[in-house]
Every structure is written in C-alpha cells, then in structure tokens.
C-alpha cells in the first residue's frame, strides 16, 4: 500500500487538503466545540450571554420533560432498529430465495432510499389522518378509535411505522448484497439436510452476514435518533404532550421556538455523548458476537 505514496511535496498536499480541512474545521469541529462552550451559558437572541456554569445540565437532569424525551427517543430508536431490521431481513431473505425476478423486486423495494423524509411524513400524515385518512376508516372498522392527534401512544406508533417504512429499503440493499455473498454450497448443504427455511435463515445466514447487520444496527440507530426529524415536524410536532418528542426535536424547539441557545447547546452535548457512547457500545458488542471472516 505504501508504494502508492509516490508524491512527496508537502506544500502540494497541504493545498489540496485545504478545502476539506477548512470546511471540517470551521463548520464541523468548531461548532461542536462551541456547543460545549455555549452549553455553559444562558444565551438567547438578545445579546448578552450569561455564564451559568453547569446550571443548564442541572436543569436537564431535573427536568421531567427532558427525561421523558430521553425515554421516548431511546424507545423510538430501539423500535426503529428492531422493526426495520426484522422487516428488511424477511424481505431480503424472500428475495434471496426467489429464483426468478429478483431484480424487479429489489428495485421495487429499495426506492424508499430516495424518498425524502418530509414526503414520507406527509404521505403518512395524509393516509392515516384521523379525519380524512383513507386507512383510518378501515382501521376503525376493527374497533380502534384512530385519534393519534391526541392519543400519545398512537402517535408514537404512527410515526414509528412511517420511520420504519422509509428505512427498510436502505437495509434491504445491504442485506441482499450480503446474502448474495453467502457461498452457494452452504445453501445446498442446508437444503440437503432438510433444514427448514426459517431455521436456515436464523441459524446459518444471520451469523454469516452479521458484519453487515452490525453496520446496519449502527446506521439505523443514527437514523432513529436523527433521520426522523422531518417526520416528527410534519406529523406531530413532538406531541401530543411530548409523546413523539424525540431528543432532536426537543433540541430544535428549545433553540428555535424558545430561543434558549445555551440550554439547547447543553442538550446537543448530551445527545452527542449519548449517541457516541451508544455507537461505541454497539461496536464493542459486535466484536464479541459478530462472525467475521469466511
């Protein structure tokens, strides 16, 4: 690999790297650092930041509303991860087992990757609208009163479904690719031994594609925490009564509805640390459980 490094002009290297480094520094690192700094102040639109030390963090720890938001977010992300991967696994496995027409199904399933989250949210809002949604009348036929504008748990479920729906495609892309890399001989052996399809999926394929699954768990977690912002904003605005007030949305409101920038920065820092730790934890767990290598 090192024989490729044929160019040695350091000035050139510096110049070529400059745009990436400058943008990274100014727009990525600096704001992050500043978030930490800002979190120690009480700041608002009106000038005059007041240094308050760790008060913002104390407020967070004692705010039941915020803690509720944390709970909701974690629950939401967990449901997203599990839901998306379960559905995607089934779909990918189906596509893998089908002999003809794989390509058609694949394209038909992965297109939601291109779907803007805002559009996903809006469409779901429309079809499940308590008053005018087309699904509503059919669901109500089952005796369920569809009123997720005021019913917290229902709202949670509806947004969850929208979120899972959108993300399945992305997962299927990677899972089908990974399944496709499983040696044919393993499938044949399992078939010869009379192993049922479900057992084959769970006991043979899942362990073999576990590196991909680990990657997807991490990506889905990030999506569950951050990628669903537009859906929440368009469908429930965090309500009713904070039932869908995931951390990122709560952050947004603190900053741009209540204009408490210092407080919001503290929330950003907590969010960053939480997600960072979560990903790190997932990564370490994967080292133990995932099966790498042929």
């Amino acid at each position, binding site marked *: 690999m090192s*024989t*490729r490094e*044929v*160019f*040695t002009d350091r000035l*050139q*290297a510096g110049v*070529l*790297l400059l*745009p*990436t480094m400058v*943008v990274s520094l*100014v*727009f*990525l*690192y600096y*704001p*992050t650092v500043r*978030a930490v700094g*800002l979190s120690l102040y009480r700041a608002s639109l009106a000038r005059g930041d007041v240094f308050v030390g760790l008060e913002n963090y104390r407020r967070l720890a004692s705010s039941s509303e915020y803690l509720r938001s944390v709970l909701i977010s974690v629950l939401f992300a967990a449901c997203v991860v599990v839901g998306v991967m379960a559905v995607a696994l*089934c*779909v990918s496995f*189906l*596509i893998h*087992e089908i*002999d003809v*027409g794989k390509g058609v199904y694949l*394209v038909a*399933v*992965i*297109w*939601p990757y*291109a*779907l*803007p989250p*805002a*559009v996903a949210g*809006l*469409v*779901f809002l*429309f079809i499940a609208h308590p008053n005018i949604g*087309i699904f509503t*009348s059919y669901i109500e036929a089952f005796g369920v009163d569809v009123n997720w504008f005021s019913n917290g748990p229902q709202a949670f479920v509806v947004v969850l479904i929208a979120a899972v*729906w959108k993300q*399945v*495609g992305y997962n299927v*892309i990677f899972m089908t*690719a990974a399944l496709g890399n499983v040696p*044919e001989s393993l499938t*044949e052996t399992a*078939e010869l031994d009379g192993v049922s399809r479900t057992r084959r999926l769970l006991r043979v394929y899942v362990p073999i594609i576990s590196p991909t699954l680990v990657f997807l768990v991490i990506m889905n977690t990030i999506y569950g925490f*951050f990628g669903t*912002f537009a859906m929440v904003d368009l469908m429930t605005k965090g309500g009713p009564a904070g039932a869908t007030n995931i951390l990122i949305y709560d*952050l*947004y409101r603190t*900053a741009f509805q209540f204009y408490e920038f210092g407080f919001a*920065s503290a929330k*950003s820092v907590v969010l*960053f640390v939480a997600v960072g730790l979560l*990903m790190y934890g997932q990564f370490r767990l994967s080292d133990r459980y995932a099966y790498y290598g042929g």
Partner: protein
Amino acid sequence: MLGSLLTALTAAAERSRSAGRTTSERIRRFETEQLTLHVLAATIVFLIILPVLIAALVSTKRAGIVTSIGDLAPGGHALSNYRRALIGLEFWRFMLNSFLMSVAVVVGKLVVSLLAALVIVYYRFPYKNAVFLFILFTLLLPVPVRFVPLYRLTTELGMSNTFFAITVPYLASATTVFILRQHFLSIPASLVETAKVDGVGPLRFLWSVLVPMSRAVLVGVSVIMFVYTWNQYLWPLVIINAESLQVAQVGLSLLRGQASTGEVAWSMVMTGSMLTLLPPLALLVLFRRQLLETFTIQQK
C-alpha cells in the same frame, strides 16, 4: 441458481424415493413453495409502494379527500394541480432552489473530496494517518449535534439566509473521501509508479487516470450526495427564512400548514410531495447499478 435447484431436486428425489414419495410430488411442492414466496414478496412490495401510490393518485384530484377505496380513482385534475403547485403556489422556486443547492453541493463535494482522497492515497507526509482520522471523525458530528452553534456562527458571519449557508457547510464529506479512498486503493500501485517515473504530475494523474477509472463510483457517490442534499430538512429550515430561497423540503411544510388551515386542498400537498419525490427517485432508478456498486465499497 439453476444448478442448486437441480442439485436440490436430485437430492430430494433420492430422499423421496427412500421415503416412498414420487419425484413429481416433490417438484410440485417446490413450485408451490416458489409461488408462496412470490406472493409474499409481491404483497410486501405492494404494501411498500401503496402509500406513495395513493399519494400519486390523490395528487391528481381536486380536493383530495379520500376515505374509501372507491375514492381512489385517478382524478382528472393532474395537469391543473401540478400547474397550480408549480406556478400558482410558486413551488417551482422551491424546486429550483433545491436543485441549485444539490448540484452545487455535489459538484463542490466531488472536487473537494477527490483532492482529499488523492492526497490521502498518493502522497506521503508525516501525520497522514492523523489527518485521515481527523476527516473520518467528522462522521460523528452530524448536523443535529452542531446546528445550534452552527446557526450562531453563520448568523454572525452575516451569511444566514444565503445560498452560501446551505451549500458550504456540506462540502466536506468524510463518507465520500472514504469511498474514494477505498476505490483508489483497488487500483494497482504500478499505475501511479509508472506515472511518477514518466514524470506525470499529481493533478494530471487525477484527471487523466483516476477520474476515468472511477466513473461508476463517482456516479454512485454523486447520486448518494444528491439524494442526501435534496432530502435535507433541518438545516434549511433553521437557516433560511426568506421563502424565495427556501428549498422544496421545507416548502412542503409550508404547504402542510396551508392545508391545515383550509387554504389549500390536501391534493395539492400530495402534488407537492410527488414533485419533491421525483428527482431523487429518478436518479435512483437511472443509476441504481452504480449506486449498488458504491454501496458495496462503502460497506467494507
């Protein structure tokens, strides 16, 4: 697949012979199995497409109130709806802004990341690994984490509500640099060595050799970046106030607001949604091969 099917069939035939069942029964069972699989897959595919299908149908209606399947017949108002959305409600401006933003970001990111990947792979200098980690680490700093101070910074720079604000912050892309790096590493080292011996400079090497050899990856990466940028919601929402500069995603939010107050029919909201969905979807369909190729590199 055919080979495995034959193998499985033969094995199954042997087993069934000893089990006393006929081969033809076994084959029929296989066919039924495949049929079930197809039915299952088709159902799921239909379910996944259904919401958007409904949205598309509704976008052609006048009022857009559909409460039962019977209401789902395509309305005849497609043309007037889309025209109204684009011109009357000025959605064309949102689309244009989104388009300009996405194209600018894609082109900018490509250039910046190509240069960075070139240096990372083909230059030798001290602390290079630290630099690479520095770039990769930005993956842990997504927009939601920094958008509050970023808002402050942009406002202080006097750049809020500008085209600059919705393009420049996106120009550094760790994923793109990473993908390009992986791809460059798959190109034999002897190519750059022979260029070096012949006296070919780094930029010429990039333009005449690396770029032509990376076509599929570049297209894939461009599609990924375009979709990502086109779908951006949070940052444009926060930093752009003027409607004339706003992007399509946030424009949808405006439409929704108008629909809630009855100003605008729900069918229009669906029309706007379809318009916003079209460009990234078209790219996905057109370039799915390159996209899939790029994803497999990213995974490693």
